[in-house]
């Protein structure tokens, strides 16, 4: 699967920022987890999803 262009990635960035604000801090973790699970379902590729988990797991120390 071909990765998305930067312009489309930026649209996703903007949309996510606004949804996180809309769902509020109490629900943001639940929202992001559901989003990841839905994306995994649509992606339908165990190997790529495993790589995505590794990428997203890096450099998390001291995050707010």
């Amino acid at each position: 699967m071909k990765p998305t262009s930067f312009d489309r990635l930026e649209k996703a960035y903007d949309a996510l920022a606004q949804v996180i604000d809309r769902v509020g801090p109490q629900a943001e973790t639940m929202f992001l987890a559901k989003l990841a699970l839905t994306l995994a379902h649509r992606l339908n590729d165990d190997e790529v999803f495993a790589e995505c988990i590794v990428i997203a797991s890096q450099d998390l120390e001291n995050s707010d």
Partner: protein
Amino acid sequence: MRPAGRGPLESLYFDYPTFIAPRVAELDGVNKRHRVAIVGAGPIGMTAALTLAKYGIPSVLLDCKNTFNDGSRATCISRSSMQIFDQLDAVQPFVDKSLGWRHGSTFYRGQLVYRLEMPHGDNDKFLPMYNLQQQYVEQYLYDAVERSPLIDMRWSSEATAIDARSDGVTLQIASPIGDYALESEYVLATDGARSAVRGFMGLRLAGDNYEGKYVIADVRMEHDYPTERRAFFDPASNPGGTILIHKQPGNIWRIDYQLRPGESEDEAIAEATIRARVGAIITEIGHTSGWDLEWWSIYSANTLCLDDYVHGRVIFAGDSAHIVPIFGVRGLNNGLADAHNIGWKLGYVLNGDADARILASYTPERRGATLDVFANASKSTRFMTPPTRGWKIMRDAALSLSLRHDFAKRFADPRQMTPYTYADSPLTPFADQDREFAGGPRSGAACINVKMADGRYLLDHSGAGFTALMFAGGALELELYELGASLKKLDPLFTALVIGPTAAAGDCISDNGEGIAKAFDAAPGTVYLLRPDLHVAGRWRRGDSTGIIAAMKICLGAMPA
């Protein structure tokens, strides 16, 4: 603001002149009707006056202060602005004094995550960006103003009221040697973000204010680092915040840092706080041999502008018309483009060479540029100072990913200023013809430059008025000669630049190797018509004398678009 014990204009590097209000004819009861009164002698007002003077139009330039502005402020000059100064024969001191640059580094928690490289090639006469404190910008423009016999500079002269009518404008001026009324055909309001003229006219800026506040502080230090833009996200010296560092001439360094959420503005601008915060940043960048505090100020990001820049005979330019966030250095540079844009149009109208209807193109062109800035600057601002939790989470996620993954690095691009293309302008309605070209600058775009065999640049040969780039196949065809003669009848300042494979005719520009033709995707017979501000009015791949003459008439308001 400056450290305790130093006056507001006691700079470590700049000697402020003190100007006095001149004795003017109006004080002796002589009521002359001036062509243009310009309120505000900052960089925008002076550039407008110099542009008008280039077209032979005298102006009265007023400023309520008695000297230049108090700090380094707008410190980045873009390539397009240097091109404007070049066209005003004022660029040399800027080149000599400023520090040019084209790179930037973005750090996240101390690690380099993005390397900015602004495009620059052999054909570019100027670098993408130059750093120079605003006092010098004003000094060098003022030196040019002083050389001009057409600019009546009046310091310590404050506009206190305005009467704008359909046939002219009267300003009430207060000066230390007396108050008077000043009559003019047009007023340019270049009096800055807190424009008094805007207030007199009952106009308000509309748009958004952003939450995040920044302190900007200048220090003098012998610090060894190249001239480039350094941005730090979540650095040890400002946890959770952002820092920007720029080098300026004279070992002066600009340090911008974001205030912490909830940090009080009063406390933030106290000298002790400034020294502590700046000291921590200087330590973090590895400088150990001492520094002097020069000047500081505070700002928050805004995207605000007027709905219309033209109100009858009162026309707004620069910060009086629009306030933009500083990320991307568009405040000064777009203001200069405003001044240059309205300058040539008003010059042509007042000389009787164009119909006043062309003034109506100023708002769509320059407000269009502002709205484009807003789109870019809003993104930069949301990245630099995330306004909400959602934007902060996404910004931090992008930065964290960018530590190891290229796909996320472009989020850290500062989206630096590029000249705006007047694609939707009523003066450049020829987008259809752009389809005939596979390259070159399109209708409405700022014209590209090309370095020639003799070391000069193509645009050095452009004239003060409209310029046609005519690509000839050898000897100049009769049709191009006739076209040039017709265009000269419409615009007395018209310049024809004939570009051919060999220097056949006297005025022909030799294009050995056809580098110019390639850059413009030109074939024999191709014509580019450039406006006085060197934006492309239109282009025709296979010529078309009727169409080209019509394009010139549209630009001169002689026929509707």
